[in-house]
């Protein structure tokens, strides 16, 4: 797994804006095809990914594997939460501060990343460490702990 983009204190006024920012960064660095961002936004409309965890709102936007060139995640921590639709309940909106954009090709990799994220969002201590991370080193330390070593 690679960390394609790391955005801390990102200012954004909508979920679409966060997705665009991450998708552009990931496309520029060659991790995803150019249509990835649009595909993620469309999927988010049909199957939203906002998760109202105890310690923070988290979203895990993603798209079909055909857009993925090199498996990676993009991460953004927002200065102010933006609303994502709630997974399984699109009429509800979740204020989200932590966004993990997943660009993964195989189902095994998807499941592995999901299991790691689920453990993480239920772990208040690590969640708070990431929410409070002021610089890239602090954020990276938590993200490495969540996903294992990045290549």
């Amino acid at each position, binding site marked *: 797994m690679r960390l394609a983009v790391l955005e801390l204190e990102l200012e954004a006024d909508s979920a679409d804006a966060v997705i665009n920012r991450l998708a552009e960064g990931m496309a520029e660095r060659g991790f995803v095809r150019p249509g990835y961002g649009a595909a993620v936004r469309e999927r988010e409309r049909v199957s939203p990914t906002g*998760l*109202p*965890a*105890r310690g923070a709102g988290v979203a895990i936007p993603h798209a079909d594997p055909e857009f993925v060139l090199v498996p990676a995640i993009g991460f953004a921590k927002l200065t102010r939460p933006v609303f994502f639709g709630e*997974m*399984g309940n*699109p009429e509800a909106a979740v204020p989200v501060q932590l966004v993990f954009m997943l660009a993964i090709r195989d189902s095994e990799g998807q499941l592995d990343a*999901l299991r790691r994220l*689920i453990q993480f*969002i239920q772990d208040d201590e690590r969640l708070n460490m990431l929410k409070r991370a002021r610089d890239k080193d602090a954020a990276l330390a938590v993200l490495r702990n969540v996903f294992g070593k990045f290549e």
Partner: protein
Amino acid sequence: MNRKRVVVACGTGIATSTVVAEKVAEACRREGIDVDIIQCKATEVATHAPGASLVVATTTIATPVSVPVINAIGFLTGVGEEELSRRIIEALKD
């Protein structure tokens, strides 16, 4: 108690439904409920629901089904997880 069938669904039938299926299996094992779990995409629920006692899903199910549908994202967030297990068990008891 008769063997029950539970359909567990998510968008792709791969990721969140796997995590949820494990949680449902664990809850049933604790309660001594015999269960067959069918994991599928949300779009395939209508095919698998007949004969099932319950659908447990992490996405909305667009097609109407004749069995109860329970939203399972509590298994992903950890919020209300015990209550969610209890509702699933209640729905499976004769």
